[in-house]
């Protein structure tokens, strides 16, 4: 299942305009009939394959398949121009696999201790943690803190639709039975990612953009990656993996920041900084190791606290819930064996990615050339059947289209999607923790500042929002 996921993920990641997140969103229904032990690793395979696949178009046609692969263009594309496309793709594969494996090991070591810490969290601490995480995600994701907050509150109001689980009363259902159970998360995701992207592509001139792109690559010794070359970049791979892992633990920062940070650090610490930007192997290894190392670490706050650090872990959170497993401290109490199997699956999937990627990357390079006019109508068909199959209900398909339009407008106005998706998913948990805190603290929420953990988290949230505002004012982009 992992190999199948990796092959599908690499396929989607190789296609510019399609992301690993979109791939998981539209392919989650394929895992419905599988037990969690097979379904989740399948999705993990898509996730890892999709994120790695993003490097292929970045190297070949200077178009990153994922945001995290944007920094790979700096040296990957010049290498392709010099006829070393295969070498660059394989270097990115090795760096990705090593970075991801190291990050998964960090996840493996720290998730249980962190989950045990989470067990000591009461409702007030959880509420403060939610506030801190949301402020971090809204403030750091995107370039405008106000747009981030707007997106976060849009998600919160979406989460309020349906029957309120605490009081049992309905909210904003306008007499529709279909809305009583709330907005289906998967439907919303498919709309926000797949339909909105199709509208963006159509609006941007997909119809005219059917010309073929020639990939400049050649066989021969200079396009082969040697063991000595891999050994030569080991320092860069390890330091970039450490940067990516650290960035991944902090919610909201994400793979693109890790990749750019690792690239600039690698350049600064390199013996040959002048070679960067001209087709340097270190310049490919650094961003790829870092953006992949974000993956495992990103699961740490998700598994321990049930809080996703970015869009893709939010989508994975949805996948866990679909499979009857709610991430958080109880996850290891209720599903310990399954969880360890999944995490070992994550570690082994890096090895499978390395092997499959090594042999299949030259074929995936050709996928970059599939014309969009064939690709995007096909995605609509898959998106429709995907959203329908969640509840076997055509109403969900209509909701998917509504969110497609919302996603299109958000993309056009550069309002980040991540805060909306995360609050839509966590909105009910935030509300429950608020109400429980309110009852526990006898209606005096100011007592949140008298409990050390919640006080520190709220203080950090305040510092983050002030810092984000100052940064935005400096950039003259509130």
């Amino acid at each position, binding site marked *: 299942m992992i190999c199948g996921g990796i092959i599908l993920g690499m396929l989607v990641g190789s296609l510019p305009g399609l992301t690993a997140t979109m791939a998981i969103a539209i392919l989650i*229904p*394929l895992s*419905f009939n599988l037990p969690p032990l097979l379904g989740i690793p399948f999705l993990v395979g898509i996730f890892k394959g999709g994120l790695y696949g993003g490097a292929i178009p970045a190297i070949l046609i200077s178009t990153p398949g994922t945001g995290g692969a944007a920094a790979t263009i700096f040296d990957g594309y010049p290498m392709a121009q010099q006829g070393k496309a295969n070498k660059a793709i394989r270097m990115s594969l090795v760096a990705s696999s090593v970075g991801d494996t190291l990050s998964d090991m960090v996840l493996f070591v720290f998730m249980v201790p962190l989950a045990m810490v989470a067990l000591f969290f009461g409702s007030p601490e959880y509420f403060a943690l939610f506030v801190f995480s949301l402020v971090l995600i809204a403030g750091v994701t995107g*370039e405008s803190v*106000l747009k981030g*907050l*707007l997106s976060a*509150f849009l998600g*919160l*109001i979406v989460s*309020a639709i349906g029957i*309120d689980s*605490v*009081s049992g*009363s*309905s*909210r*904003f259902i306008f007499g529709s039975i279909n809305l009583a159970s709330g907005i289906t998360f998967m439907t919303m995701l498919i709309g926000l990612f797949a*339909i909105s992207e*199709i*509208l963006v592509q*159509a*609006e941007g*001139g*997909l*119809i005219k953009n*059917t010309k073929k792109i020639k990939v400049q690559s050649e066989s021969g010794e200079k396009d082969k990656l040697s063991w000595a070359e891999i050994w030569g970049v080991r320092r860069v791979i390890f330091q970039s993996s450490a940067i990516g892992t650290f960035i991944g633990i902090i919610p909201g920062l994400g793979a693109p920041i890790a990749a750019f940070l690792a690239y600039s650090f690698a350049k600064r610490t390199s013996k040959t900084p002048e070679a960067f930007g001209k087709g340097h192997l270190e310049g490919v290894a650094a961003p790829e190791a870092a953006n992949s190392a974000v993956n495992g670490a990103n699961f740490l706050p998700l598994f321990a606290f049930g809080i996703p650090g970015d869009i893709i872990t939010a989508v994975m959170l949805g996948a866990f819930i679909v499979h009857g497993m709610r991430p958080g401290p109880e996850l290891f109490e209720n599903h310990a064996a399954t969880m360890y199997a999944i995490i070992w699956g994550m570690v082994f999937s890096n090895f499978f990615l390395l092997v499959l990627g090594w042999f299949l990357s030259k074929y995936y390079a050709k996928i970059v050339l599939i*014309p*969009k*006019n*064939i690709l995007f*109508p*096909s995605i*609509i*068909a*898959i998106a*429709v*059947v995907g959203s*329908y*199959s969640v509840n*076997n209900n*055509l109403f969900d*398909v*209509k909701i998917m*289209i509504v969110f*497609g339009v919302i996603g*299109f407008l958000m993309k*056009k106005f*550069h*309002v980040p999607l991540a805060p909306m998706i995360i609050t839509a998913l966590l*909105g009910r948990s935030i*509300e429950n923790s608020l*109400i429980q805190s*309110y*009852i526990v603290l006898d*209606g005096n929420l100011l007592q949140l500042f008298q409990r050390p953990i919640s006080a520190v988290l709220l203080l950090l949230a305040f510092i983050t929002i002030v810092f984000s505002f100052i940064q935005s004012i400096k*950039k*003259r*982009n*509130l």
Partner: protein
Amino acid sequence: MSDKSVNIYLGIFSIILSSIIYIFIPSQVSMEPIPGTEDLVKITPAAIPYICVTAFIVIGCLLIISSIFLNEETQSQHEYSFKADGLVRGLVTLLIVISYPFLLELLGYLLTTILILLVLNIYFGTRKLWQLALGVLILPIFITYIFRDLMYIPLPTGSVLN
């Protein structure tokens, strides 16, 4: 479109959204206190919607105020382009997508998907016969096989054919 205009539009949208939610709260959300909070300062299921209303107003006002500090000459960090021909293409695509679930009710999954894919492929510029066959015929049959026959998910059969 500049960052200044975008902030103004988003600010106005945020305030209008806030007003709409505020108007609908009394009719759509219960005002009965949540069990367990009757003895405290009352908290109702409308708490989160009211928090959102307040947040949208504050964010909307801040977006509009922030646009004052952005002059038209400020270099925009993004490209906000809505060209007329692009919008028409987007709207036509949207209309085709909107018709999809309604046709599903009538014609069922396979026929509707073949029809919609044919229209979209032709609209998106596919002219080669083998590409049309691949995108319009093979994909819907493959999807139907995977979902209906392998995963046992009953796809819409359509009222006309029934």
